[in-house]
């Protein structure tokens, strides 16, 4: 995992493609949040407040 991140960072630095970083970070972050959001225990809390 660390190797993959290191490779990605090396690629971005070598090719000066730092604009790729937000895409990767947001995709990973959203993916993780999606895992936590599914089967949510708090989704009803958010929307049913009512």
């Amino acid at each position: 995992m660390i190797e993959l991140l290191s490779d990605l960072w090396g690629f971005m630095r070598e090719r000066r493609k730092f604009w790729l970083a937000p895409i990767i970070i947001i995709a990973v972050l959203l993916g993780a949040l999606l895992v936590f959001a599914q089967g949510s225990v708090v989704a009803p809390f958010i929307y049913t407040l009512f």
Partner: protein
Amino acid sequence: MKKALGNILLILASIVFTLLAAEAVLRIVPLDIAGSAGGDRGYFSRFDPELGWAPLPSVEQYHVGDGFSVAVRQNAMGLRASQEHAFEDNANQRRILVLGDSYVWGYGADQEDIFTEPSAHGDDNVEMINLGVSGYGTDQELLFYEKLGKQFDVNEVVLAFTTYNDILNNMFAEQYGYQKPYFTDENGLTLHDDHVVDRPARRIGIWFRDNSRVVAIAETGFLNVKYLWLSRFGDDEPVVHPRDRVLGPGALRPIDSQGVDLTVQLIKRLRDEVEAAGADFSLVFIPYKPNVLALQAEDHPLVTAMTPALSEASIDCYDPYAMFVEAARDGASPFNEGDNHFNAKGHEIFGKVITDRQLRETIGVCQ
């Protein structure tokens, strides 16, 4: 300098592009959580300086939520009804106006199944007027009655009371991310509503929260992570949302008890105004789902906590809890699976309680 600026713009464009792409994907992929993007208040209510939020008039939409997709119709007054209601009693029916929150509004229930609809209660001699608005506490219900409800010529006003959150709703200036009016009780009720303002930035934030699936997933995901963290490392009791706990007698949180007096004062004022308008007033408790499904002997402990003060104020109050337990015992859950609101069965039972006075007299809980 130019190059650095160019890089920053490129990175910003990359962020915007990724978020838009994620939003597009989440709208195509049928994920459960994506379906819950869009709170009912976002779709069916608008900002109101006196009420915090008020129902949008003339709405015909589907409400997609956690495990349901249901038809919603709000009439020209914004009331969830398949028909228009005149202020005057033209048909000479028994007219009952029902105040409440999302239970009365019919969260997760199809239009035709809501207990205030003629198709659901089936009593041709009764016209029910649904003043339920999602998220309202007793304070907003009182103000909504003063603003709109009291213009209706009705025989009876019923307040449907949600034990697990109405008292809490009454205690705060903001609920569910929306500002709301509230009362304090120091030698009489004092209304506070100067803080209820429609700030553009806030409106944009709420729009995103209600309409963006990326934001919905981020919010839900972060909350879940927080709950998991507290469950593992918090020093309190295990984290279970209060509305999901089975609550035995006396299992009250201190914060709930604090709001009982204020809430009873609000109910008394509502009762006085209803009676001054020439109608009867009564309160019906909404049975608490976790206790019903666990076939507990008693409803939410706040029912017991509130009834002495309600009795003292001579307020008629009723609790159809035993009827709901009976349905659950027979294998017909009266609640939505994914939330605590009534399903069609729950609306059927609640409708009977509202329309059938004799039946209601058998479930009185106030002396």
